[in-house]
């Protein structure tokens, strides 16, 4: 759905995520928006971005968006194809990967993520979600984590029902206590803008807004009493070049 501004919320989120990726970085990519963002970055300002998929492909260079994490085009274009144990043990765990993308069914003010259950108890939940996948160790071991998720009061909660992946735990010092060696989530990209962690409290603050987004909307769509920066950064809309590159990628990818 394209808004009157000429681009969709998904496109705005994808472009914002792509901009966060510097050339030459190594990036652990999931399917969906993260994959679109990483491939957009590679097609525009970051031609040497290294795409790593948990299916075991390092340096994949797809010319369309992969349809699944195990899409054949990933293996066919990768620098190296390795086993799933190796991708986690030799590449993710030792901290070789700069950026990991995560989604979330729930995220709390300290960036802890739930993708396991909502409501009820663990054995008989109201909603059973897919679970952890690669997320706990991506959250632990990547140098930094970027979360991409739409901002709603149901998703942005004071306290998650289950901690699938640790952000900053209960606050400052928790990552160190838990032995998590990456820096944790450095930004949450939503359909309203970008939240970044307060360096003192580790609480996420809305520090950048997308064009046309009012502070009031942010408060309404956040389940905790979210702080908004006094002078939030105004995120520029997608440039024509960014939009064109993203749409070219999508056009080359039927079914995505």
């Amino acid at each position, binding site marked *: 759905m394209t808004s009157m501004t000429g681009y969709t919320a998904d496109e705005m989120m994808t472009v914002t995520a792509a901009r966060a990726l510097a050339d030459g970085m190594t990036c652990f990519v999931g*399917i*969906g928006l993260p994959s679109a963002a990483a491939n957009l970055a590679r097609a525009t300002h970051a031609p040497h971005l290294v795409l790593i998929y*948990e*299916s*075991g*492909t390092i340096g994949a260079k797809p010319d369309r968006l992969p*349809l*699944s*994490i*195990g*899409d*054949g085009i*990933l*293996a*066919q274009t990768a620098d190296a*194809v390795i*086993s*799933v*144990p190796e991708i*986690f*043990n030799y590449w*993710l*765990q030792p901290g070789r990967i700069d950026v990991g993308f995560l989604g979330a069914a729930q995220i709390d003010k300290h960036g802890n993520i739930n993708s*396991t259950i909502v409501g009820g108890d*663990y054995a*008989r*939940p*109201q*909603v*059973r*979600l*897919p*679970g*952890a*996948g*690669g*997320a*706990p*160790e991506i959250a*632990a*071991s990547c140098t930094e984590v970027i979360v991409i998720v739409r901002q709603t009061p149901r998703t942005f909660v004071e306290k998650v029902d*289950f*901690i*699938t*992946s*640790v952000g900053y*735990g209960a606050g400052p010092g*928790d990552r160190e206590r*838990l*032995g*998590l*060696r990456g820096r944790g989530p450095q930004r949450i990209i939503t359909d309203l803008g970008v939240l970044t962690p307060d360096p003192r409290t580790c609480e996420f603050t809305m520090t950048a807004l997308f064009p046309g987004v009012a502070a009031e909307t942010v408060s309404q769509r956040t389940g905790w009493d979210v702080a908004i920066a006094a002078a939030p950064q105004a995120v520029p809309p997608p440039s024509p070049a960014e939009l064109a590159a993203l749409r070219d990628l999508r056009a080359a990818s039927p*079914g995505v």
Partner: protein
Amino acid sequence: MAEIVSLEEAIRSAVRDGDTVAMEGFTHLIPFAAGHEVIRQGRRDLTLIRMTPDLIYDQLIGAGCARKLVFSWGGNPGVGSLHRFRDAVEHGWPRPLEIEEHSHAGMANRYVAGAAGLPFAVLRGYNGTGLVSQTATIRQITCPFTGERLTAVAAVRPDVTVIHAQRADRDGNVQLWGITGVQKEAVLSAQRSVVTVEEIVATLDARPNAVVLPSWAVSYVARVPNGAHPSYALDYTVRDNDYYVAWDAIARDRETFGRWLDENVHHATAGSPA
């Protein structure tokens, strides 16, 4: 030496009620045809192990084959929920489903430990997550050199592992390539194994990125062309993404699922595409 037999015979010989069964394949090479044969043969009380249950286990769970699921990510990739899995966990239908839940890194290492004949593996993982208190096969371990606290996960040792591969030779040596996931470890961690293949050839010429499982490390090989459908076998078939999308509506409703099961599994013959 692996025996080359029909799919029906391979599953009948290898899979028994109450077994712990791993069917692996990371998006690629998922052994769907073998899964359907397990349903057709009416196996019950299985403990199913798989990193990504995917549609194959949604089908087995919905068909009532499973007592327990051991897994790390239970969704329909790119589409949404596995509704039969959710129905079993949320409502106990068609029977209650015990779960043992891990992360991908943990499951991968559990297979590695199984393949290596070790009772556990060590990783940096799970710290601070809710899984630690829910899953008995996750424990803390201390490095005897540095005193550092790490995580231990128990090895998996399936009774049977089932995988799909591109091909085997007439001696039963198996070759797979492309994204090969955790299949080698899954086969080596199991007591018995079944490999379905796209074709049986005279000679396995060397391939880039190929994994070879020697015949003597495999129990049964069965020729099942398109046996990974709706998953795929690189250089043989393509992934049926529409099937994955269509599955959402089929699996969402118990009756629709029941009809699908009758038409596509129970009344299909071993190895026919479904």
